[in-house]
């Protein structure tokens, strides 16, 4: 083995990388970008969830403690925590506010809430959930139940002259009050788990990812093998070329999203409510967006190596900012406009609306229109970018 040769080889490799300024820039900036985004998002304090409260409790008279109002006490307990932003509602508003997504849950304390507790020594919470985010739904149920337990414990402690208020302490002789929640879901349901919520994103991201790479590399090859120049010397316009690519690769995008969708639904067995055809339409439009994004990105790449480096630059921000794991409302305000520029966000929302809420075309069309609009803008941008290489 000759160290001299190894040194020369290493020198040559370094020279090559250094000559490729874009690669050097990507090596430096891509991880910084991804790390910064991750840090911002993981550290961001989630915005408090809005929970509606309908308090019709008229209270009751207890021989032990005089006049009490359990609904009001629970309300105080819930207000004391900072996880929720409580919104006082009237009963007639409940359905509309849940449907609009204004509030994620509503707790209803009926007129006889205290009275029925005093009679049965049982608290039955009437909890109505919006339900499209299973993780959030579970957190709300847990938090509200806990608040009810604390309220009960405090109250019993006060009336029975016991100190301490933790019902969760365990151990014999401590007071544990039965609290149960009567939960109803506007969308989704108990059987919906976190993956059901993540699945739409997963589908949209996968549907976009592979066609993005395919389009990017196919178009790059068109340039590297010189056929784009030959094509430019024919009457074919740039717009026609981009459209040709869109339809040609679109077929494979469509086959792929069909496989992704059917596999997720039938093999992995996610729960979904709406129409499968509508889901396919959303993912198909997303695939078209992926193709055009790929064609556009290829204009900025000289080598296939650079295409691979687009993954952290183009796709990771989509995954992080597109409302996949963090709701846009939980993001810092300066990131929100960028998040709204991510095509995947609109596919996510539309897919979730179909899959979790069972919405139809009539309801999801605005998001579909934005997605299709982004696709169209990308087609135009790709055509314009080609001008740089072929007049």
């Amino acid at each position, binding site marked *: 083995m000759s160290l001299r040769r190894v040194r020369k080889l290493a020198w040559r490799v370094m020279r090559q990388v250094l000559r490729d300024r874009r690669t050097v820039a990507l090596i430096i900036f891509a991880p910084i970008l991804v790390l910064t985004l991750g840090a911002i998002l993981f550290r961001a304090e989630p915005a408090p969830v809005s929970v509606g409260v309908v308090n019709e409790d008229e209270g009751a008279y207890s021989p032990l403690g005089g006049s009490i109002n359990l609904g009001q006490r629970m309300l105080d307990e819930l207000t004391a925590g900072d996880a929720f932003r409580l919104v006082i509602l009237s009963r007639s508003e409940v359905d509309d506010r849940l449907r609009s997504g204004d509030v994620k849950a509503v707790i209803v304390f009926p007129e006889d809430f205290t009275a029925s507790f005093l009679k049965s020594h049982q608290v039955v919470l009437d909890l109505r959930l919006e339900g499209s985010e299973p993780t959030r739904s579970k957190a709300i149920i847990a938090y509200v139940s806990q608040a009810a337990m604390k309220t009960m414990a405090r109250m019993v402690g006060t009336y029975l002259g016991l100190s301490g208020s933790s019902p969760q302490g365990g151990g014999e002789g401590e007071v544990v009050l039965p609290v149960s929640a009567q939960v109803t879901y506007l969308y989704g349901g108990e059987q919906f788990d976190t993956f059901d919520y993540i699945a739409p994103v997963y589908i949209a991201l996968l549907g976009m990812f592979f066609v993005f790479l395919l389009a990017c590399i196919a178009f790059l090859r068109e340039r590297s093998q*010189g*056929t784009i120049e*030959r094509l430019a*010397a*024919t*009457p*074919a316009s740039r717009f026609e070329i981009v459209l040709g690519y869109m339809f040609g690769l679109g077929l494979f995008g469509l086959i792929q999203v069909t496989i992704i969708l059917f596999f997720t639904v039938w093999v992995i067995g996610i729960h979904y409510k709406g129409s499968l055809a509508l889901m396919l339409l959303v993912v198909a439009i997303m695939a078209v967006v992926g193709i055009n994004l790929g064609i556009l990105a290829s204009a900025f790449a000289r080598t296939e190596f650079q295409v691979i480096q687009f993954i952290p630059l183009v796709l990771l921000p989509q995954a992080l900012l597109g409302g996949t794991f963090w709701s846009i409302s939980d993001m810092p305000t300066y990131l929100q406009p960028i998040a709204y520029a991510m095509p995947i966000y609109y596919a996510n929302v539309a897919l979730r609306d179909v899959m979790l809420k069972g919405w139809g075309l009539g309801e999801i069309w605005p998001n579909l229109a934005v997605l299709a609009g982004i696709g169209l803008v990308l087609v135009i941008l790709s055509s314009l970018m080609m001008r740089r290489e072929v*007049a």
Partner: protein
Amino acid sequence: MAFEPVLETIDLHKHFGKIHAVNGVTLSINSGEIYGLIGPNGSGKTTLIRLCLGLLRPTAGTVRIFGKAIPNKMILSDVGYMPQAGALYEELTVRENVAFFAEMCGSHEPAWIDEAIALVGLQDRARSLVRTLSGGMRQRTSLACSLAHRPRLLLLDEPTVGVDPQLRATFWSYFRRLAVSGVTLIVSSHVMDEAERCDRLGLMRQGRLLAEGTPGELRKQKNANTLEEAFLRFIEDDSERGTR
């Protein structure tokens, strides 16, 4: 009645940053002639061809093909272009490549495609994938791609680079046949024996057209026995003028 030139350029310039790649070229090429653009590597031949096709925007000057100002996408259906590098789809067959480019130029005649493939002698390999072909066969496929829509003007950028002498002779006999049938050809080359086969020549150096004429005229101008000798003298004289 004066014949309108098939292709003309008027005081054409192209800058790439500080490099003056094409410097005031004025050309006029007539119907049915084989015009050779001769010059060393980097003399601006390819840039000139790309300007003529509208693939590059000139910094100054104009190009006209069949009397129409370039860029003009529609005129390109009457123009054939063979770029220097292969520029073929490796995953497609010879016939698929030829048919694709013909279709892009608006020609839908299967017979013309077969004819172009036969002209370059690749009938037996028409169904072969381009990636399985030898270098010479690729060049022939590339030529067929520029012919199948029966253009009236052909721009061939170093069509015989990497081609063996026998095939080169075959190519030139195609070119002559095409010219006789009325097609105008512009062929760039830096090989002198090819220059002899052209009707007229333009000698390029550092983006300028140094001299123009028939091979005989150029030899005569410099009192040379061969074109090579004549070209060397043109270049020498030009260098002297440059240093003076």
